[in-house]
């Protein structure tokens, strides 16, 4: 791997909110070349068999760029949904449904992180009540044990381990982890601390994006 591709900070991020008119909130997020579009509907009517009497039912549909969703996508979908359930104050909307559609537009690495960040932006855009914000940061470990933040797809292929962390905005604790590969506990902890530091940038980016949006209106 050439030295130029080594990154200790995140790729450039840009986001567009409310691009879609039908959903209650939507966001398109670019992290480098990776692009994900999320849309939120709700709180709205819920199907009777999915009704929960004490909180809203969160549904997430993850759409791959092409083809039918398989096991990998379902797994991805569950990670996004569980994260979403954690941050949403769903008990404010009992017997209703919050439905989220996450559409992969382009995958150039750090896809899961981009999905979660775009989901968070879409929720912000919809104005739904949340406990806290979440920031997802992806990194890879190469065979020498060096950490690459926000890896591209090429870097992911040659990596020893791929790790995605999601931190909350209050205590910066770990909301979600997905770490696969071969690594030691120390390496895991190192990734965690690097990612935690980087998460501040993402929270900052959220603030900027929202400020921009509110100024416009």
């Amino acid at each position, binding site marked *: 791997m050439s030295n130029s591709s080594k990154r200790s900070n995140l790729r450039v991020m840009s986001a567009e909110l409310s691009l879609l008119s039908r959903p209650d909130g939507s966001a398109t997020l670019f992290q480098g070349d990776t692009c994900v579009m999320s849309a939120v509907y709700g709180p709205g009517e819920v199907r009777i068999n999915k009704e929960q009497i004490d909180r809203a039912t969160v549904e997430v549909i993850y759409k791959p760029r092409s083809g039918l969703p*398989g*096991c*990998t996508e*379902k*797994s991805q*979908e*569950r*990670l996004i*949904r*569980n*994260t*979403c*359930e*954690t941050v949403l104050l769903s008990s404010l909307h009992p017997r209703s449904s919050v439905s989220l559609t996450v559409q992969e537009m382009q995958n150039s690495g750090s896809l899961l992180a981009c999905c979660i960040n775009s989901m968070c932006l879409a929720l912000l855009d919809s104005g739904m009540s949340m406990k806290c914000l979440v920031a997802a940061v992806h990194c890879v470990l190469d065979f020498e044990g060096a950490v690459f933040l926000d890896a591209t797809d090429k870097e992911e292929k040659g990596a020893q381990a791929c*790790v995605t962390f*999601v*931190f*909350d905005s209050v*205590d910066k*604790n*770990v*909301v*979600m*982890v*997905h*770490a*696969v*590969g*071969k*690594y*030691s*506990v120390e390496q*895991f*902890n190192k990734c*965690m601390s690097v990612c935690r530091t980087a998460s501040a940038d993402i929270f900052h980016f959220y603030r900027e994006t929202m400020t921009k949006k509110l100024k416009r209106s």
Partner: protein
Amino acid sequence: MYSSSKPAETAKISVRAARPLEYYRKFLEKDVRPDGRELGEFRPTILNIGCISTAEGSALVKLGNTTVMCGIKAEFATPKTEEPSNGYLVPNVELSPLCSPMFRPGPPGEQAQVLSHFVNEVLNQSCCVRKEDLCIKTGKLVWVLYCDILCLDYDGNAPDACILSLLAALKSTMLPAVKYNEETEKPETDSVKTEPLHILSNPVSSTFAIFDDHLLFVDPTVQEESLATGTVTIVTNDNDLCLVQKPGGSPVTADQMNTCFERAFSRSKEVLRLIDEILHSIER
């Protein structure tokens, strides 16, 4: 139990069913679980290896009530053109309606798909079976190992049981000896001679449940799973980590993560000892 004015009629109100959360809190205040386990204690683990003779490798795992069976069927296939010397590993988890009232007949539901993906990730990332070992003739013929994991009784913590049954089944797998006939371009299978599969590493999974946002306990039952505010699954691979997964839920601190790692590594040793014991007893 409560009785109404008419003594013959009674209605049973089980607090366990009506108020399960309160019920659990009462126990956990005393650092014990309703089934008598401590927070860091796994349920008794029973292992039976090689129980299905129609499969090339098989294992039955009982983790308390949770029962999982893994059968490995080996078949011939042509390799992918981009990886001509790699065999296939195809794991699938089936949560059939037989094992719990939660599952309905039909195609696999979300949970089964997520589990299949989880097992697939562990199998690929841990590299416990080298795909090159499954090659018979480069570019022509390779083994495909269908690892089907069937849940027979679902009482929580399927990931741990699945990974354990898979590892045990792989360790017991005996592939028939095959010669590739260059002239006819067809394989010739020996109906008697078999060869064991090489297992390079030992992935072991440990699942933790988070209760009331702060309490961590290991090996949740199905009721504990439904009450938990989050789970953490750690798959160790000998002295390394192979997979850490925390699919949302209550946030955890770095310290809590490290406690989980410690327990996962000690569990890994326990489990590997158990597998070795059983394998030895079979050989004898």
